């Protein structure tokens, strides 16, 4: 099978959230960056499992500057066969999806994977945009996928439960927790990754979407009000009269 996994770079989950003085951009200085966990733990690993059972090749792709090569190398160390970096800063999801679509349109990928959202912008729109640009159906927030005889049976998270879907043909899938189990690259993988191909592709001329005008931090939370455990009537009174939520 010919599988493509789209990966993003995001600040580490524990990185401090702060912004440039004009509030226009995330303050990157002193931050650790990682491969977006939904892309790495679930999308990439499920693609690798499929390759192991069905044969074929896993290509990982990222739109970003040369400093993103480290996350692509990590993807190769985990087991991808080939990496592609489209050489451009991606200002938004539409730009990134359009670049990947340009690359993928004549390559005949059977399944294109990505994570359900990035952990910084939490937009979750990249996969749908890519699917539309390639005229493919989009299965979002998949938590399980079985594959047999060219047909995938997919469980997708919906409000209060799951839906089970059967695909027919090619599609784009976005991964949520459960689709696979995280894999840690071993020493052999890391050594092999150095010899695997990392192709740098020139960016196409594509559109961008609306951009952030201003980032702001939420107001500080007030002090917690401790309530006497012996007096739950008091808690109920506070929730009713002060917080007005019951």
């Amino acid at each position, binding site marked *: 099978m010919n599988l493509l996994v789209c990966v993003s770079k995001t600040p580490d989950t524990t990185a401090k*959230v702060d912004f440039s003085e004009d509030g226009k951009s995330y303050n990157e200085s002193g931050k650790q960056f990682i491969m977006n966990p939904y892309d790495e733990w679930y999308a990439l690993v499920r693609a690798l499992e499929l390759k192991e059972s069905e044969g074929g090749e896993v290509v990982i792709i990222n739109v970003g500057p040369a400093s993103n090569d480290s996350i692509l190398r990590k993807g190769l160390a985990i087991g991808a066969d080939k990496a592609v970096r489209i050489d451009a800063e991606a200002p938004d999801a539409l730009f990134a999806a359009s670049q990947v679509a340009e690359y993928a349109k004549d390559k005949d990928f059977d399944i294109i994977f990505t994570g359900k959202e990035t952990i910084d912008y*939490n937009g979750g729109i990249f996969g749908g945009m890519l699917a539309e640009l390639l005229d493919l159906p989009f299965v*979002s927030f998949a938590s399980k996928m079985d594959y047999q005889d060219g047909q995938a049976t997919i469980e997708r998270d919906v409000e209060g439960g799951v839906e089970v879907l059967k695909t027919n043909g090619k*599609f784009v899938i976005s991964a949520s927790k459960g689709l696979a189990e995280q894999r840690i690259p071993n020493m052999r993988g890391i050594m092999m990754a150095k010899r695997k191909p990392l192709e740098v592709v020139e960016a196409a001329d594509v559109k961008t979407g*609306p951009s952030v005008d201003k*980032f702001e931090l939420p107001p500080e939370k007030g002090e917690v009000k401790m309530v006497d455990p012996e007096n739950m*009537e008091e808690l109920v009174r506070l929730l009713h009269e002060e917080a007005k*939520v019951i």
Partner: protein
Amino acid sequence: MILIIAESKEGKFKKNAFEIATFGSRIAQETGRECAAVVLGSHENPSVLGNYGVPRVYHVNNDKLDNFDDVAYRDVVTKLAGELNAELVVLPHTAEGKGLTGKLSVAMDAGCISAVNGFKVVAGELNFVRPVFSGKAFATYKAGEGKLVVSLIPNSLQIGEATGDEAEVINKEIDFRSSGIELVEKNVVTGEVPLPEAELVVSAGRGMKEPSNWGIIEELADKLGATTACSRPVSDSGWRPHHEHVGQTGIAIRPNLYIAIGISGAIQHLAGVNNSKVIVVINKDPEAPFFKAADYGVCADLFDVVPRLTEAIEKFKAENN
């Protein structure tokens, strides 16, 4: 023209349909535009959206649209939006919405701002606000001049008071393709408010010690009229179903009241619940990090305090009914 997509389930509007209607009609009012809704698939009474400021509803009544299909929904909404010359389409950031938003924006050749929780009009310009970094910050976007697709996070605003107005319902036939993806099965809890829509949530974690202890949580949720949720370790070990898991890797919720019982408050858990309006934390460990994110705290043994809270709620309900 603003076109809102009103979601329904088994022929009735979901709560988020009224939120979207309220949201869309408010934007229409503040920017001097019209607002209409589209309803896809079978529906008992689309005209009730008139209650929330939407005067016209386009009903594409085809039972092939009863279940979500990204390609079919894209076709219908793109065609209708084109016909109506809609420059803004608003849909909910739900399971269906997440499957449609990005696709629709490309098909309409529109900009896209997903997962917003509010709007503001500043100096005559429409802006949308959305939480980023799992609620640790907010980003404001200018709507600009061109076409735009926006998705609204459920529970982001109070539904407006029903006005008693009925919307004009226009039946529409629109051709569409389908994705070829077949819905084989749907396993959804019934009779319970789904978590993303719930206004009151009672959630419990590892402090419960074992799954057989959940009786006191269900009892409290029942008396309060709340939906139950859980932390990641609890769903990972199979104590509670996966769909109850709230947090960074589970679902993000924003109820009016979130009661966290026996949950320490790891950063990944907070990421899914820190947009709740009011947070109550019950934990016997005074050092539990969750207390820092809470509005009200009770530092005590949960097995002792939860039944007493249930009792107090019951008493309160009896007095206030």
